[in-house]
């Protein structure tokens, strides 16, 4: 299971990105994107922005769940009150033939299951809390790229904790 997480500002400008892998089921936290597809992640993720903008008005929730799918890439979205979008691309490991059924219960193996949705929601919520703290820094200006190592470490921690 590999994840690519990005934060997109209200002007559709990228603010933050972070790539990681699952830490559940003995995962080492490293992403398994191959070099051939890695550069596609940004495109896939950003192409879902249109859908996010449609869905965000349809219900009052911040967490929009899984909004888009591109082959084996699933995009979950969270919109903050300031119209900043958290986008998480998750790519389950393609089940190789004959793999044990055990892996199917893992978080993320089934990207649209309620358990996965809940785990991602927890991840987003924690990132949101830390996001608010990061942008409360007096030296941060709206829609500025977030370079804070502290914020990055906290996103990584949230990823390890829930995904």
């Amino acid at each position: 299971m590999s994840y690519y997480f990005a934060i997109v500002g209200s002007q559709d400008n990228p603010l933050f990105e972070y790539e990681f892998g699952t830490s559940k089921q003995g995962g080492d936290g490293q992403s398994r994107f191959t070099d051939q597809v890695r550069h596609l992640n940004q495109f896939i993720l950003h192409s879902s922005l249109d859908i996010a903008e449609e869905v965000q008005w349809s219900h009052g929730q911040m967490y929009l769940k899984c909004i888009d799918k591109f082959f084996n890439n699933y995009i979950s979205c969270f919109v903050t009150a300031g119209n900043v979008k958290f986008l998480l691309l998750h790519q389950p490991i393609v089940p190789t033939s004959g793999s044990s059924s055990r892996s199917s219960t893992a978080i993320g193996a089934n990207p649209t299951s309620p358990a996965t949705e809940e785990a991602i929601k927890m991840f987003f919520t924690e990132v949101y809390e830390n996001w608010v703290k990061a942008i409360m820094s007096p030296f941060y200006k709206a829609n500025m790229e977030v370079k804070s190592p502290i914020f990055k470490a906290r996103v990584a921690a949230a990823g390890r904790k829930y995904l």
Partner: protein
Amino acid sequence: MSASKASRVGEEIWKTRIDKVNAELVTLTYGTIVAQLCKDYESDYVEVNKQLDKMGYNIGLRLIEDYLAKSNTMKRCANFRETAEMIARVGFKIFLNITPQVTNWTSDNNQFSLVFDENPLADFVELPDDGRSQDQLWYSNILCGVLRGALEMVQMQVEAHFISDILRGNDSTEMRVSLIRYIDDELPPEDD
């Protein structure tokens, strides 16, 4: 007044006589001031420190009166050690609800450190990532000015500066305060 009594007094005043205000409002207001100063002085952090100190000084000149009124202080501290305890346990307690530790006295009792375990002014703050702010900016420098101004009004000329700050990556936030002299009473002008 003993240190423990000072703590009780500070706690009592904080509970009964202080109007409370939202902590984030204070943090963000102060943060905005510092950020604006950095912008106005084009990241000349030495100058920003100076301006913060000056602003603090002007606050201190007034704040001391509020301190004296709220704490019902009727007489002077017996010595500089007592002054330090009152600053930490009553002053900081009633205005910021923190109690910095008073430590590192010099043998002549004229210099001490205030070590801040928490600093409400610096919540959420990350210094600008320009390679200079970590070495030059004392983010909470307004506090030095406040102490300087407040103590000047009660006849103590002091010098105060930060020597470390968690924001800079140091292990603690520490301010050094040195007594320069006690100021004499001003005499009335001679009659002609």
